[in-house]
């Protein structure tokens, strides 16, 4: 590999990372998950620390998945990791329905303003049930 080739590969890798990283941040910003978390916990002043948390997570995840590093930890570490993973994806999904303006229109059209929390529960339980069904049954029988 010549020096030029190495520089070219470094440049392409860096450019690709830059594009994916900006896309990731833009996605988080549009959905407003971090502001919502600061609002829930009243920690608006720490928002910069949260930014660094998201950036550090992206770097660690990227590094680990590309290097295939292995840590040999107890398997029970996966329980809290799985829970946090789920909460994050759940918040993304909730934020997405909000961006799409699903709830106000649904409430107006069918006139259930007072029961909207029950409908919200339908979606939350549906996600849990669908996900459990997928992991426990679907992956064994339909792949």
């Amino acid at each position, binding site marked *: 590999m010549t020096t030029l080739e190495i520089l070219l590969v470094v440049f392409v890798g860096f450019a690709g990372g830059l594009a994916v990283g900006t896309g990731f941040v833009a996605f988080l910003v549009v959905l407003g998950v971090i502001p919502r978390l600061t609002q829930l916990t009243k920690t608006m002043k720490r928002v910069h620390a949260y930014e660094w948390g998201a950036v550090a997570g992206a770097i660690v995840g990227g590094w680990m998945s590309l290097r295939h590093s292995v840590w040999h930890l107890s398997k029970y570490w996966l329980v809290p990791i799985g829970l946090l993973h*789920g909460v994050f994806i759940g918040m993304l999904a909730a*934020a997405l329905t909000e961006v799409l303006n699903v709830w106000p229109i649904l409430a107006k059209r069918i006139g259930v303003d007072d029961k909207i929390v029950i409908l919200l529960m339908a979606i*939350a339980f*549906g996600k849990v049930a669908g996900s459990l069904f997928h*992991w426990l049954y679907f992956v064994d029988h339909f792949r």
Partner: protein
Amino acid sequence: MANTVFIKPRHRVQVKPGAVVTLGQAAQIAAPDGGLIRRLKTIPLYRIQPSDKNIVIIDMMQMIRAVLDVDSSLDLQMIGPSQTIIEVVYEKRKFSSASFVLVWLLLFVGSAMAIMNFHEDVSMQQVHRHLYEMMTGQAVDKPLLLQIPYSLGLGIGMILFFNHWFRKRINEEPSPLEVEMFNYQQSIDQYVILHENKESLRPLDDA
């Protein structure tokens, strides 16, 4: 100054079908003379017709005309919004429990399918297997120790985002859902103010 009357149209007023909307219903009134206020409050502005359907807009100018008809010596000071939205509330259609259950099931099954398609789309099973192997050094076919907490977390995350669990304890800010509902209502109000108000639209053929 003795004849000055301040009138502030209300934003939104609900009335029954066939009712007569009076100035006191449609607006707040302030004047030095209490008797005058009482008299002004009863001025009829508009009788709701069946053809009006849900929304009637009463323009500020209609109110001024109605007041001046009664007493043209008054000095009217109009403040606040320039119209009132009159919402005609018909007998509430009872939303049947059967259709509610149907909508509930629709959302339940739909979101279950959506999350399964999402998992397949991003090959999450493979990602979970890799993650399990990275953390523990063992390869497993079904990393359920990761996936079951993940599934429960999904529900918790959704409820957390919209929710009211913490709201009472931690702060009084409205939840994103309440803000969304408010914004939607505001947009509808803006629309009906312009489109249902015969006074502010003037088509070409209207002489």
